[in-house]
């Protein structure tokens, strides 16, 4: 049942429901750049409430809503809003609730979207809550794997880089573990995947942890690269040493499987040099553009055009 459903955490969705979203996103794909001819959400208003800047995610949601014919209400600058006057999130949500048919929320506090969903009658979509959940990012990542490789089951996915703090890695690896996949976690010692996440995943599927990307590149169907942030290291020299090891080179990719794809949640810094962009394995820009059909699918499902 999708009508009026909140999309707060990827953990709320079953495998069947994830596949339903991917399937619907695939149907939206032809309209992602031209707009849906039927304008199924023409009588709907979608509010985007971004308490922290994330221009790309906001624009992607707003574009998706507009492609379906919906109108968009956007929270203006925070300095001028009641947020700046100290209004609680729950109060703001109760007000916005009456202005719109769905609320897209980005907030620095983890769990903010869950809270909002308890105060809103209209569905709430989590567009990122601090270091917590960002379910539409996870869904667009899964859509990219599914679309590029034909299926998710049977695939080997390697995550490389900052696996400790990267929330996209945490959510995506948990969601993938519901499928029949093998996961590889490749990171320096300081940035290993948190134990509780690994423990949870290992209940369902095999997991391999290593520091050495070279030795496992040939086993992978997907190489999911994340940025290693300077701020995580007290010593800049230490950072340089670690970050340099995980730069993706053409020579590395040439040793990979024929259909290997390289993904990245963006923005990237040095971990994927521009020379990779034109290789057939590079799918990160396509991955970003998949945000539109996936968000169109979700908006269409929860606002009930069919």
């Amino acid at each position, binding site marked *: 049942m999708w009508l009026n459903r909140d999309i707060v*955490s990827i*953990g709320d969705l079953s495998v069947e429901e994830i596949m339903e979203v991917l399937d619907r996103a695939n149907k939206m794909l032809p309209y992602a750049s031209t707009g849906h001819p039927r304008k199924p959400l023409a009588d709907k208003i979608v509010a985007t409430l971004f308490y922290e800047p994330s221009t790309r995610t906001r624009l992607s949601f707003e574009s998706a809503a507009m492609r379906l014919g919906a109108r968009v209400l956007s929270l203006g600058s925070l300095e001028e809003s009641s947020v700046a006057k100290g209004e*609680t*999130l*729950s109060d703001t949500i109760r007000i916005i609730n009456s202005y719109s048919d769905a609320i897209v929320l980005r*907030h*620095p*506090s*983890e*769990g*903010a979207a*869950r*809270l909002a969903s308890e105060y809103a009658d209209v569905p709430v979509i989590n567009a990122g*809550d*601090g*270091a*917590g*959940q960002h379910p539409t990012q996870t869904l667009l990542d899964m859509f990219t794997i599914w679309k590029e490789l034909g299926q998710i089951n049977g695939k080997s996915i390697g995550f490389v880089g900052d696996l400790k703090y990267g929330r996209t890695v945490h959510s995506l690896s948990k969601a993938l573990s519901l499928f029949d996949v093998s996961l590889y976690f490749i990171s320096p010692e300081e940035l290993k995947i948190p134990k*509780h996440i690994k423990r949870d995943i290992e209940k369902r599927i095999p997991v391999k942890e290593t520091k050495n990307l070279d030795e496992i590149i040939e086993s992978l169907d997907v190489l999911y690269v994340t940025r290693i942030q300077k701020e995580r290291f007290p010593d800049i020299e230490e950072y340089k040493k670690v970050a340099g090891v995980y730069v993706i080179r053409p020579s590395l990719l040439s040793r990979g499987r024929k259909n290997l794809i390289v993904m990245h949640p963006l923005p990237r810094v040095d971990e994927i040099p521009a020379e990779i962009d034109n290789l057939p394995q590079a799918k990160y820009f396509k991955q970003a553009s998949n945000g539109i059909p996936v968000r169109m699918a979700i908006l269409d499902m929860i606002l009930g055009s069919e």
Partner: protein
Amino acid sequence: MTEEKMLKVEKIRRGTVIDHIPVGRAFKVLKILKISTDPGVTVSIAIHVKSKKMGLKDVVKIEDRILDSSELNKIALIAEGGTITIVEDYSVIKKFVVKLPDIITGILKCSNARCVSNTESVIKPSFTLLSKNPLSIKCHYCEREMETDEIMDSIL
């Protein structure tokens, strides 16, 4: 006379006896009940008591104080399976085993400082019990999983 039997004869007139506390946790029980600093309450503590069931256990007796359900839930967090005996006029009027509910609300805060439950005053922190042994719970809001040590430090 075994130590266990000796404890049984030291009856209190009115109050609460908490038995079968995992060894080493008696002082934590006092801490979470906030009675270690209250001079108006007489407390007897027995630690490293031999127990057939547990090997060693701790026991706490609190005079003239009947614990409420929120306090019992807090005890369940650190002494799941502990036995509570309520005494009035030297007789046992109620005896039961403390159990953790599947949803734990209002007795501890989330250990994640960035969790919305720590910033929005209107909400009560709420947790789902994932496992009793080892103790593990998950925040309803931020989904942070907490284990024994973190839980101890987060009891309200």
